[in-house]
């Protein structure tokens, strides 16, 4: 009963983690091998994939006999796979660039906005982009330097690889190795709980997630970016600067199943899914034009 070797078997947290990795690999291998009457393959951004996964589930439920395979691998894989015909549709967490417009056609299915959050008791109402950069580089480390209390700033950053981090760094022209963080968080909820529990914290999370938690009474507030209020409305109308469109891309004008699925993903039938994942829905009439507007 007390042989030390047992610790290897009883240490369940790590064992489950590794087993989970093994099995998920096995499952991926199996799912890509099975066939159905009609099949649609989407690959690309890890930001878009969970959303499309949920949309695909609903689409499959409404259209028996159709199977939709969603795989992640980053926006660049989405474009590459769509271009080589390995996937019917690519998923990217940005708009199409001007030089990509010739080869691809983009369809925006939702938008994602990132807002700066502070504790509700923090008297600071706005900070400039330059101040954000200085704070994240560690050159400014006290709130009184930006018009707040006499207190040290707790800088909350996101873990490596998250697309929220990428968008944040890109907008503020930072390298992650320059950031002097006090706390590194995983998902939005952890970020919101961290800021809600620390009156001196500054963090950034998905605006949809922050608005939901504020409505639930969480003591945080969203700060404007570049004088534009951080709300789902400003994200939706495109005026909020720290946002991006989640886009489906195809190489040829969509037909048949591909077209039907894109229409479904842009329709109001999936707006509840979009909101549940903390993204901002766009109406389908706007989608095509916004795709062009954000191509820069």
């Amino acid at each position, binding site marked *: 009963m007390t042989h*030390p070797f047992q610790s290897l078997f009883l240490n369940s947290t*790590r064992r489950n*983690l*590794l087993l989970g990795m093994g099995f998920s690999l096995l499952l991926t291998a199996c799912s890509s091998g099975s066939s159905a009457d009609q099949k649609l393959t989407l690959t690309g951004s890890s930001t878009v994939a969970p959303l499309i996964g949920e949309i695909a589930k609903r689409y499959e439920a409404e259209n028996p006999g159709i199977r939709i395979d969603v795989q992640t691998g980053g926006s660049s894989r989405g474009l590459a796979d769509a271009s080589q015909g390995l996937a019917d549709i690519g998923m990217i967490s940005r708009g199409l660039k001007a030089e990509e417009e010739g080869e691809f056609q983009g369809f925006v299915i939702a938008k994602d906005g990132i807002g700066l959050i502070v504790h509700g008791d923090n008297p600071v109402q706005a900070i400039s982009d330059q101040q954000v950069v200085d704070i994240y580089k560690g050159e400014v480390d006290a709130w009184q330097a930006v018009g707040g209390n006499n207190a040290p700033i707790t800088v909350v950053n996101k873990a490596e*690889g998250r697309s929220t981090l990428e968008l944040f760094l890109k907008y503020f022209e930072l390298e992650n190795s320059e950031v002097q963080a006090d706390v*590194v968080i995983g998902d939005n909820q952890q970020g919101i*709980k961290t800021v*809600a529990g*620390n009156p001196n914290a500054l963090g950034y999370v998905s605006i949809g997630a922050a608005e939901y938690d504020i409505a639930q009474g969480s003591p945080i507030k969203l700060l404007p970016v570049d004088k534009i209020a951080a709300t789902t409305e400003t994200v939706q109308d495109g005026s909020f600067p720290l946002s991006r469109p989640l886009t489906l891309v195809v190489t040829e004008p969509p037909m048949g199943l591909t077209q039907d699925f894109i229409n479904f993903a842009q329709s109001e039938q999936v707006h509840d899914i979009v909101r549940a994942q903390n993204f901002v829905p766009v109406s389908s009439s706007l989608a095509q034009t916004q795709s062009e507007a954000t191509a820069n």
Partner: protein
Amino acid sequence: MAAIAATLLLWIACFVVAEAWPAIAQVGISSFVADTSWNPTEGLYNLWPMLVGTLLVSLGAVSLAIPLGLGSAVFCQFYAPPLLASLYRRLIELLAGIPSVVYGFWGLVTLVPLIGKLHPPGPSLLAGVIILALMILPTIALTADASFEQVPPSYRQGTEALGFSRWGMVWRVMLPAARSGLGTGVVLATGRALGETMAVLMVCGNVVQVPDSLFAPVRTLTANIALEMAYALDLHRSALFVSGVVLLALVAGLIALAEIVFGREAVP
């Protein structure tokens, strides 16, 4: 059954090493301790601060949990009246059954703000040590309780006949007699502390650095895997499997050590 378990375990180990291989081959082992930082998307792969973080959090938690756990087992076995001891035992078992994410959540909304008031920012090595100590306390308390139970009653009767004080009996006779079982409990608890993920991820702050104080945030190897695995590609992903290999090696080392210290002794 044992063969199945062993094969599965071996298969997992091979899988982890195979997944880690591209990073080891292309980046080189020296990069994992010599690079300037952990920024895998910029090609920097220093795991050293996270290895230190894992060891510090685990050692801190174990050294806090050993006196508490032993104390509670001693209280249960030798001091408390039977009814209270039985109630107390149920309580400890309940503590063992709470999922780690609940500990983590409690730590995030209660413990971390408390530490933050004492010494900002709050998420810290100390928070991780306290949460982990709470989580492994039942393992130590229950195994210690069980090993005291297994000490032959004649030992106790003997000490009573010789007129030992109660503390003298515990300290001079019971602790040495139950030594092997107590050691195993500590090894089990240390293994759990090294492998714990969710709770430390939520309270430790996860900044990749060698902490300079108890109030500085740290990231453990397990938290690193959980934070980044879902979003990692190619070499970054492979580098995370290197974290997994390091963890496996750490636990294997721990077991080897335990084997040397306790291996040849018969269980009472």
